[in-house]
């Protein structure tokens, strides 16, 4: 049971964003821009960053949700799985390996990211904006993961929930649904 009273039909992050809409607004807009806005990183690549960080933070809800979103965007399930297992041997570009490594280090602590890690990413072709966005996405998921688990939110009863959620994240995005979430009530 969650640590505070939340709508029972909204597991994970959604119940929290509906509980506090004022704080949810900038969080949603930031996420929409970072993961869906104009970027030289693909939406799949940005979801992989979210997945790796959520996995490292042991946040089951966020890891499952963003893995499902990355899978749906990529049209396959291998890459997200392999990236969670081992970044250095995963089937992604050298640039993405360097960026995912920076994301994993950011998750530990900002101070863990050294000039050498940044240099490696730049040598692999990463731009300043790509490095910036990688660090900020990783940091943002350190917020989400702690928000979701720190208030003890519920996991969905039915695993199919994640497929519906992934479809919404891919085809609608991270902004609030115009008519809210009452349609999810059983």
């Amino acid at each position, binding site marked *: 049971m969650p*640590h*505070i*009273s939340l709508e029972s039909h909204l597991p994970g992050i959604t119940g*929290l964003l509906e*509980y*506090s809409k*004022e*704080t949810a*607004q*900038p*969080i949603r*807009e*930031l996420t929409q*821009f*970072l993961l869906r*806005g104009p970027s030289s990183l693909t939406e799949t690549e940005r979801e992989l960053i979210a997945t790796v960080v959520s996995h490292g*933070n*042991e*946040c089951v809800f966020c890891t499952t949700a963003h893995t499902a979103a990355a899978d749906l965007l990529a049209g396959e399930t291998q890459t997200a799985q392999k990236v969670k297992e081992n970044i250095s041997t995963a089937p992604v570009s050298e640039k993405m390996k360097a960026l995912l490594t*920076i994301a994993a*280090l*950011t*998750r530990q*602590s*900002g*101070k863990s*990211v050294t*000039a050498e890690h*940044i240099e490696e990413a730049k040598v692999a072709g990463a731009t*300043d*904006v790509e*490095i*910036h*966005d990688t*660090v*900020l996405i*990783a*940091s*943002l998921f*350190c*917020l*989400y*993961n*702690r*928000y*979701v*688990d*720190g*208030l*003890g939110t519920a996991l969905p009863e039915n695993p199919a929930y994640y497929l519906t959620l992934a479809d919404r994240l891919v085809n609608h995005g991270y902004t609030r649904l115009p008519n809210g979430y009452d349609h999810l009530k059983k």
Partner: protein
Amino acid sequence: MAHINVPEGVPGIRSLVMFRPETGKYLYDLAEVLLRGESPLSQAERELIAAYVSKRNDCFFCMSSHAAAARCLYNDDEKIVDDVLNDMETAGISSKMKALLNIAGKVQILGKEVSSEDIELAKDEGATDKELHDTVLIAAAFCMFNRYVDGLASSTPTDPEAYKEMGKRMVQGYNLPVQQ
């Protein structure tokens, strides 16, 4: 030197949001609503949670600037801020505030570190759902801000005077700095 090409001579998060105002505006909106918006916790208490978490994340810039803002807001009781940063348990704050800071400290480690006992303890001291929510979200948000500021190695002033000025400005609100 910062890891990316941010404006020179601008400290901390300000340099980062000037580099990327597209994301910066939402970060400042979040700080404003979390720390200055409506909450059952006072602005001073919220800045204290921010400074406490930033200290635990070893982020000198955020710790110093939010401690400075908290000192301004606590006014005559500004000593509370340094007492809490030295040893929260012996500081002259309410038992409820100690229970909330305990939760913020657990969130700093990892979300799942917060136990039902931690929550129960805070509720026994009178903490409401909204206070628990705001505490967890502020702590989680500073786990983001701290990593953003240090992960990109933004410049961190060492002179305490620089933070005094920042603290005064932060009390007025979190407004996106304009490009120079």
